[in-house]
């Protein structure tokens, strides 16, 4: 358009989508949440040698409300499954999931009664990382892949949730499940 030539120095032009995606790519905050052996490698990724903060992801948030990324780092047991689903539900959109390690991806060595054969049976997964455990470098590569994916997102993919606010007295709550907002189509 030739607009750039008329602008004074120090002003950038870009598309809003690109700007938003750019900032998301560079500040994907993971949920502070480790399951099993893979979590130890996740911590190693966060510490000095591998330095996950090069990707802007060093801020592991303890509250799902503040996190964008869930790194499912380890095996998911049947008892843990509802908790993971709940945590994922509590994260606000847009959110991403990395299944770290073969256990989270497909059950891995634990093909038995106790372990869910892949966390993708519970929540949608964006990036699968092979390995048992994946090396920190693999996790960083997964983050890289995730950035590529985030870069392609458009506003149209976001869903608009307009559910009425819930107000219930504590003794009206039959189960935690009943607190869940009705999902709008």
């Amino acid at each position, binding site marked *: 358009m030739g607009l750039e030539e008329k602008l004074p120095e120090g002003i950038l032009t870009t598309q809003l989508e690109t700007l938003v995606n750019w900032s998301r790519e560079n500040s994907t905050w993971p*949920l*502070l*949440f*480790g*399951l*099993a*052996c893979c*979590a*130890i*490698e996740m*911590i*190693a990724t966060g*510490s*000095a*040698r591998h330095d996950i903060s090069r990707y802007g992801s060093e801020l592991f948030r*303890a509250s*799902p409300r503040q996190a964008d990324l869930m790194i499912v780092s*380890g*095996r998911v*047991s*049947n*008892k*843990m*499954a*509802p*908790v*993971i*689903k*709940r*945590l994922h539900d509590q994260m606000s959109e847009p959110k991403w999931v990395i299944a770290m390690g073969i256990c989270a991806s497909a*059950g891995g*060595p*634990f*093909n*038995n*009664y*106790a*372990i*869910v*054969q892949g966390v993708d*049976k*519970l929540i949608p997964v964006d990036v699968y990382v092979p390995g*048992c*455990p994946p*090396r920190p470098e693999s996790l960083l590569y997964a983050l890289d892949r995730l950035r590529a994916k985030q870069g392609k997102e458009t506003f149209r993919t976001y869903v608009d949730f307009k559910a009425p606010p819930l107000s219930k007295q504590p003794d009206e*709550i*039959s*189960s*935690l*499940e009943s607190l869940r907002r009705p999902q709008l189509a």
Partner: protein
Amino acid sequence: MLNVSPRTRAYETLPGLNPLGIPAVAPLPSGESPDTARIVERFGTALLAAGLHNGQQVVYVAPGQLVALAEFVRQDPQLCYEALIDVSAVDRSELPVSDQRFHTVYQLRSYARKQHLTVVCPLADSGRPSVPSLAGVFAGATWPEREVWDLMGIRFTGHPDPRRILMPESWPNHPLQKQVPVGGEEVPFTLTWSDPEFESFGKQVLAAESKPPVLPPGMNRENMIINMGPHHPSTHGVLRLVVELDGETVVNVDPDLGYLHSGFEKTGENKRYKDFVYYTDRMDYLSAMSNNMGYCLTVEKLLGIAVPARGQVLRVLMAELQRLASHLFWLSTHVLDVSGTGMALLMYATRERERILDLFEMACGARLTVGYMRVGGVSRDLPPAFLGHLDAFLRAMAERIDDYERMLTNGPLWEERLRGVGHISREQAINLGLTGPMLRGSGVDWDLRRDAPYGGYEQYDFKVPVFSEGDSYARYLLRMEEMRQSLRIIRQAVDRLPDGPFRVEDRKITPPPRAELDISMEALIHHFKLMTEGFQAPPGMVYHGIESSKGELGFFVYSDGSAKPYRLHVRGPSFNNLFAISNMSKGAMLSDIVTNIGSIDIVLGEVDR
């Protein structure tokens, strides 16, 4: 393309596999020891059998006499078995025996006399198998008995808290019973949409619906009840604690376990002996080497083989490096939880830990889940550059430990948060069945490496630090001192590293070297037999405990003579140690719970197994 699924190629039923050499009734003891003689003298014919089995003292007793026996061996001055280390059970319904389907097995320990006693209690057959609870005699029986009820379905009459512990309360079966399948899904080699196998996919998943919260017994709704975990920044994994608070004072703590229950024991019963080594890595994933060692030693005890000297020294070397790595990780997370300077120490301690992981990687190719040891030795020899790197690390590490201590030991914040917090008296520690630093921090001078030496530890010169204060600060000092002692042991191991084979040359147990496969038909056959069938272990039962970084890691193997363990039970040190959390936290502040969790040093992979 190979399109064979395990369903059509029934691997496990190839003829010739698992010939049965099953003991007629049970692994019965013979001979006698002074202790069993004393027990026989007191109980006479009320005992079913007593004596030695695989070098261990074993007593068989009927359920009616069990509590009397426990009280006697505990109080008798000639015996004084003060602590109950472990409770497990065997479901014998797949053995060719017709009665007494369940046996419960107890491991007792006398710290004063350095003795170990196994008590087996065959239960009368009935729809609801039950046995008197020992929780009244040894408080440490409470959780292990709950675990047996949960996984094996044996009721403990008179148990103070008869809930399930690992599986959800609504779980339909008791998974370790033999008629319950391992579960899981078929693993197809290739898959097309028309495959019938596709249908079974996803069947295993339970509806991810949460249940209404249940108030644990003994808690009062008048007080504030809060929930910590299973996703909580300071619970070290997926531990859930239900805490009853009066203001900020803790009235009651109820740990809820099982969020990482992975069915290790059931899996182990379906794997050949040699294949389970890799699973042990994933149990206490911070001390994979120690787990390897504990398991291999147990199977070797059953097989009755001795590892060559080089293999033994390599094992000790690796196990001590692993203890260092584990303590470093404990230190960094503990500091992170407790004090504000945490992030710095996390970075420092992981810096050193990474160097240890590099060493592991040099030795075996993996950082965390090493699988370095094998039944009969270790998987491979050290690469040439290893010892040079190790030496550089050892020299740096001694100073680093001092650095950490300088940052913490006299820090007012650190002392404030740790001193007097999580106190456990000597009697409590023994009665609760605690082990490792939890025991030594309360003044019990006991270390399996010194008092029941295994793997050649008797040849090393090291001190066992003991503190009598019993608080978190004492346990902190103790672990720091243990790191220094580990360094000493490693140096001695390097100095004495002998030449020679690093694993037994018995081709029935360890595979031939790769080079031999190209030239020797015999080697090829041995290799094939070993890889497809594994080796068989003689019938019998063994328990072997080692001192891992968190306490006594015990493996109990009940063999029917086949290539797989008939029953494999793991005594995870952090499982038993975590039981102390309610004792430690009652009456303390809410924030002290965080200190206590760190001070116990739990790894959920091992707590839940």
